[in-house]
């Protein structure tokens, strides 16, 4: 028996090391693009060590037994009677207990490391909506830059203050590692310090309905100078847009994610396209037809279920609380789409 134990002991060690080297060199995680990702990958490495060792610890003796302790042909006797070993049983209860508590302790330390607060963090307000993201930067002279693309400077911690317009979404950039649900009715926070310039995508990780799979927006990490340049241009555009009705309308449409359902170029979507909407004749679900004018669009925005265009009855549009001026701005914007 002693010989068997020695062989299996060696097998367990060799197998653990081989599995660990294999998993470690396979590069299983995405690129590291944030300071938090470094911490997360440190914990992942600890887990890979545990997984490699425990897999070997069970599979090596199991496979060894299958080969060495297989029933020989013609043998009909039972094996040697052995019911248990109390000391061994206690050992393999207590030792794992200490190990998992150690891992939990390390997990807590690791969590704290990923949550470190930089008081200088830039605040970006994130809104999740079916099926789009919008990012709102700190106001400058009362004008706010709202973007569909998340531009961030490298090396500076960002505090995302997030909420949802409709259902639960989840903010996840795999290269940043940490994800956080975006919940209607509350603000959730996430801190990320980008460390690697490049283009990534924020991908919604919580099932949010029909187009959940496509709820992906670009994330661009650039140097502080490039970020500032982008921000100045965006700010200028926002200032200009805020001075015309259709510009304000476009900003509203963008902030509320209308384009997720209504295309502006005639492409089919969840809702009717806005391209050439005004003046178009639409058939409604009750069989009647309507020539779309400003009054109809106004009604469709303030009471979306009143008259539904045939073919769109299964995806009900949510109700938005726009002011009269805002609705007028949105109609002004829609009128330009032809």
């Amino acid at each position, binding site marked *: 028996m002693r010989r068997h134990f020695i062989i299996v002991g060696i097998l367990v060690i060799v197998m653990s090391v081989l599995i660990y080297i294999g998993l470690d060199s396979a590069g*299983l*995680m*995405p690129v590291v693009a944030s300071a*938090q990702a470094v911490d*997360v990958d440190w*914990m*992942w490495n600890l*887990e890979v060590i*545990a997984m490699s060792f*425990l897999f070997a610890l*069970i599979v090596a*003796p*199991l496979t060894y*037994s*299958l080969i060495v*302790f*297989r*029933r020989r042909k013609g043998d009909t006797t*039972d*094996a*040697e*009677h*052995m*019911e*248990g*070993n109390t000391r*061994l*049983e206690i050992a*393999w*209860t207590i030792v*794992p*207990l200490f190990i*998992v508590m150690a891992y*939990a302790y*390390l*997990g*807590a330390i*690791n*969590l704290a490391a990923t949550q470190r607060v930089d008081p200088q963090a830039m605040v970006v307000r994130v809104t999740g909506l079916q099926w789009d993201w919008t990012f709102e930067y700190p106001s400058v002279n009362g004008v706010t830059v709202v973007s569909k693309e998340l531009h961030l400077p490298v090396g500076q911690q960002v505090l995302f203050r997030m909420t949802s317009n409709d*259902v639960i979404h*989840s903010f*996840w950039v795999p290269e940043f*590692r*940490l*994800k*956080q*649900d975006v*919940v*209607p009715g509350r603000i959730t926070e996430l801190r990320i310090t980008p460390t690697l310039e490049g283009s990534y995508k924020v991908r919604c*990780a*919580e*099932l*949010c309905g*029909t187009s*959940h*799979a496509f709820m*992906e927006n670009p994330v661009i990490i650039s140097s502080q100078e490039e970020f500032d340049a982008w921000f100045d241009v965006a700010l200028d555009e926002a200032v200009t847009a805020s001075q015309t009705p259709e510009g304000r309308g476009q900003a509203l449409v963008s902030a509320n994610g209308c384009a997720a359902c209504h295309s502006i170029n005639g492409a*089919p979507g969840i809702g009717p396209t806005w391209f050439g909407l005004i003046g178009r004749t639409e058939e409604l679900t009750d069989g009647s037809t309507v020539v779309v004018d400003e009054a109809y669009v106004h009604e469709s925005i303030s009471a979306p279920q009143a008259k539904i265009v045939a073919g769109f009855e*299964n995806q*009900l549009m949510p109700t938005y609380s726009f002011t009269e001026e805002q609705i007028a701005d949105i109609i002004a914007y829609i009128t330009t789409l032809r």
Partner: protein
Amino acid sequence: MRNISPVWKGLLLLVIAGAIGYGIGLGLDALISGALNTSGPVGAAFAILFAVTAFFFGIYGYRGITRGLVYQVVGTLLGALLITGIRALMGLDNIFGVYLFSEPAWVVGALVGVVSFLFGVGVVHDWVQWSRGIDTPEHHADEPGWEKYFGVSLDHKVIGIQYTITALVLIAIGGTFAMIFRTELAASQLQFLTTELRLFNQTGPQIYNTLMSLHGIIMIISILLGISGIMNYAVPFLVGAQDMAFPRLNAFAYWVSVPASVLMLLSLVLGGFDTGWTGYPPLSARAPVGMQMFFLGVFTAGWSSILGSLNVIATVVRLRAKGMSAMRLPILVWASVATSIIALTATQLIGLSFQLVMFQRLFGMPFFDAARGGNPVLFQHLFWFYSHPAVYVFVLPGLGVISELLPVFVRKPLFGYRWVAMSSLGIALVGFTVWAHHMFTSGMNEYLRVPFMYSTLLVAVPTGVKFFSWVATMWGGKIETPTPMLFVLGAIIVFLMGGLTGPPNAAIALDLHLHDTYWVVGHFHDTIFGGFVFPFFAAIYYWFPKATGRRMNEFWGKVHFWMMTPSFFVLTLGMMLIGLRGMRRRIVDYDPALGFDFAQLIMTIGGYLIALSVLIFIINLFHSIKHGEKAEGNLWNSRSPEWQVPSPMPVHNYDVPFEVVGEPYDYGLKDSKYVEFSPNGQKHIEFTTEPEVQPHRH
């Protein structure tokens, strides 16, 4: 018609009645909407209801399950019409709609349909008689042959097989759904589930969401029915009882799952639902009427789970053979008790959480509506308080099967019996304290996440005890590897993969990366295949001779194993790999730039091979019932009491009661026995034609 086999007759009627139902539904729909919607929900709903009912009529005639289904269809329509009438009298708009009936009408109709089914199938017959002061005998005479499986029987072995076959049917349906969307996922971009597609009022991505959600819940119900199958079939004869403690309740618990399954199928065509089986609001508060069918289906199936587990506990507590002390119980019985404790006490919470969303939709009670003071995260707490322990409900009986079968094929006692028995209870109890580890990203209090990390990692301790005991049991044994043992070994390794990939999810910061990715999907499928699917197959190959007196074909059993196991590793390791690299779960399509196409294609091929292997298993199963090699004795040379009597098992299990005189797994100990049959031994229940309960007479 006399010469046609009942199955062909059933299939023929299925097609004919399906077409008739489709026509009726189409006509009704056209009458109300004024348009012919050939791929719409109403025609499909009627087609399903008519086809299923006619199929059983062809096989079995107008009795048992057929009558139940007829009652369910009629009850559903009457209930829905009643509410529609009331709504019309109230002067409400939209009393009819795209789904024919309005949502409240469908909900009430579905409930009336479920209750009607139970009356129609006859499972409440005895209780109705008692309420009228009429006695009924304990044992209805079961018909010989296969026919008894289609009607109400009080025999635990019949019910166990009914559960098992229903579970296999649901596995086939849920598996087919999975193959449909796995095919779509084989390459990036939308292949056939396109945005232009319109089926049951859903676009391609919506159909994907519905199929993915239904795959989840149908598999979960099939697992619950599968473990009930194992427990119902085996527990009474393992403890030496002649039946379960409450045979009528036992039949009720089984039959309530049938209308629940019909509701699940209806949810597919009634607009589907796009929330996954987790049904998180606010999304589930907005989904089509299929959502309500899903809620009601789960609600109804939950009764099956609660009442079934009550019965298992009562049976083990009250009906054990003489001398069967706690530490001489077969290990599967310990596992069944542990799993039943969870199912009995936690299932209510999922029912409650779904009921609250139902009420939010029906009555406007804003439990989870943030705009009106509700809290969407509260739902997740209620939901996971059951749904995490539920995974232990799924796996504990399977782990019990591993521990039960391993000594038989190793010819050596189970190493550390007491520790293995207690580890099941340990897992069950710790399992109640870990639910919020599903919610690390949810926005719950961030400090509260830490205690849940500690409690979650604690589960590893009793689970580890099982693994170490299994390895030590095999060490120094004389190992045989017939098909059941192959599946036991597969179960151990696959469950090990599932177990080892769990702790990374418990480490909070790391979970913030892993959560809601294919990593979790792979981890979960490993735990469920290792903890349920492999042991379930092992149990079927092992106890099949007990039920039929024949054994399943060894060659095809081994083909099944060797085709399924490697394919399964390819599938789940692939899932974990792409999950780590950024594949979100529950998506109909993925960014081609991620470079997952090749991995997805390989995984899809693996999925098809698994489906093929299960098909081989099902053919082997049904073929062996009549044509398998005879096996009427102690085929596996087991010490367990059921193998000391001839197969198939006699109707009342043991004509002569047994007494426990030794340890259950003392293989290798000379002249030792586990049980001894003693004609003078004390009988637990005297079966007579008198009812065991004397109803009150007025």
